């Protein structure tokens, strides 16, 4: 079996759908620093180039005015127990362009794997970028994910990101995202992670609502147990009239897990408004007991509640 097939199989086994044979759907498959497969569609250009050892330069461009119909599938992975995957990603959406990227990261056998992503994202006027990232990790916790993104958003552009850990242990996750928004631009960043054992989750998300009527939502939902730890730092600044934003952080803890939430909101214009909500605690006992009164045991009940929370 060749590497491409192994990667696609690992992806499917992890729960991904088979989209790699569909000619209307663009895709890119990367195992460590090897581009195993690539398919483009009209209006979309994807270039992957290995420069340094273990580093891939990835460029994704959507031409002005093109609305890519089917979500583009990107599959990143490291199949062996050990390895480094370093990606420098450049995303450029032309004016009025639209794209959804489903990015799946698969590290099924990780004992000591590091996946590092540095992204520069530029959204031109009135463009729309949806980035859905799903992670499928192994059970050993041997993955370190470090993601950094600088995001520039021109007027009327929209960005939606959703990060979900679908399977396995976190290992270590470290995010550092920062977005600058011009007038009428809109950003929504959602993170859904559950961690256990000695997992470590560090999230830093910052959005600056610089333009009039810019909108920002930073929303993290995290459930941790055992000795896991989560630090969430969300910063939202608003400095123009009618700029509005909301920071929402919910963390559920069990056992010896420790969660920290630091919402920072800064408003520099009297007609701007930013709100925040942070709740850290154990699972609501009314919810638990309702499900227990239907016959679920405590473990089953808390799983269901956490699954629900992370879906929402």
């Amino acid at each position, binding site marked *: 079996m060749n590497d491409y097939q192994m990667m696609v199989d690992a992806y499917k086994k992890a729960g991904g759908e088979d989209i790699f044979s569909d000619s209307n759907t663009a895709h890119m498959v990367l195992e460590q620093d090897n581009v195993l497969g690539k398919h483009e569609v009209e209006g979309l250009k994807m270039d992957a180039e290995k420069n340094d050892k273990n580093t891939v330069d990835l460029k994704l461009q959507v031409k002005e005015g093109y609305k890519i119909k089917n979500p583009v599938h990107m599959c990143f992975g490291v199949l062996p127990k050990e390895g480094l995957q370093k990606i420098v990603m450049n995303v450029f959406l032309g004016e009025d362009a639209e794209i959804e990227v489903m990015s799946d990261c698969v590290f099924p056998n990780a004992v000591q794997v590091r996946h590092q992503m540095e992204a520069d994202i530029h959204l031109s006027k009135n463009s729309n970028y949806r980035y859905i990232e799903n992670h499928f990790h192994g059970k050993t916790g041997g993955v370190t994910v470090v993601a950094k993104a600088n995001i520039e958003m021109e007027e009327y552009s929209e960005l939606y990101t959703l990060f979900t850990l679908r399977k396995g242990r976190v290992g270590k996750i470290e995010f550092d995202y920062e977005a600058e928004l011009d007038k009428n631009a809109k950003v929504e960043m959602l993170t859904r992670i559950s961690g256990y054992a000695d997992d470590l989750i560090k999230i830093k998300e910052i959005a600056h609502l610089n333009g009039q009527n810019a909108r920002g939502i930073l929303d993290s939902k995290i459930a941790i147990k055992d000795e896991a730890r989560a630090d969430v730092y969300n910063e939202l600044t608003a400095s123009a009239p009618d700029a509005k934003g909301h920071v929402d952080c919910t963390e559920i803890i069990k056992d010896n897990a420790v969660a920290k939430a630091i919402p920072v909101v800064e408003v520099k214009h009297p007609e701007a408004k930013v709100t925040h909500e942070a709740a850290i605690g154990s699972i*609501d*006992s*009314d*919810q638990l*007991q*309702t*499900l*227990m*009164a*239907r*016959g*679920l*045991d*405590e473990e089953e009940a808390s799983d*269901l*509640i956490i*699954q*629900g*929370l*992370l*879906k*929402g």
Partner: protein
Amino acid sequence: MDEILKIEELNLVLDKESILCNISLNIKKGEVFAVIGPNGCGKSSLAYSLMGLKGYKQKSGAIYYKDEEISNLTVTERARKGMTLAWQEPARFEGVTVKEFLSIGAQSRGNNIKQKDLEWALKEVAIIPQKYLSRNVDETLSGGERKRIELASILLMKPDLVILDEPDSGVDVVALNNIGNIIKDFKEENIGVLLITHSDEMLKLADKAALICGGEVFNVGDPKEVSEYFKYECMPCEDHNPVEHQEVLLNE
């Protein structure tokens, strides 16, 4: 008729305060047993104590369900034996669909349910299945809708004893009618019903009623008589402390 639930001399203390005092009641299979009484008299606390909720374990006394003393069983164990409770104010669940929620109780009791069963249960509580099955049981549902959905989940569970804590409060007249019919169905299926209520309409469905005041049972018997006693003979009393209440009674 056999007894499904026997409560003997139940005493409950919360936060050093006596909440229930020497409660003794018997509920038979297929019997609708109403519990009435003023706000704060301990009706919900009794329900929680019977269901075994955290923090509501009795200080003394015994609870027999199907002739087994269940005081040391967990909520889950009680539920799996066929006991369940519908809350006065049902909890909300983010990200859990009505469909998932309805299936839980049925599955834990080993009842295999299909789509048509889910639809049936919702129709029983006057809810249109197509509109609701994929919605979440969260704050986007109204309080009355959540209560009806909780009742539907209990229907699918096929319990042997249900404790309904004010199933009528906050629901509209149409649903009220349906809830009445459900209680009648429970009775027909030989299910024991402990019905906590403030409504005369609901009380009409009861075979027997108990009046609780200040954590004590004051009167047990025919629902109409008990209700009239409550309405016309009961003085609003300043002191709701059941222990002192009892002292007054003893002195009399």
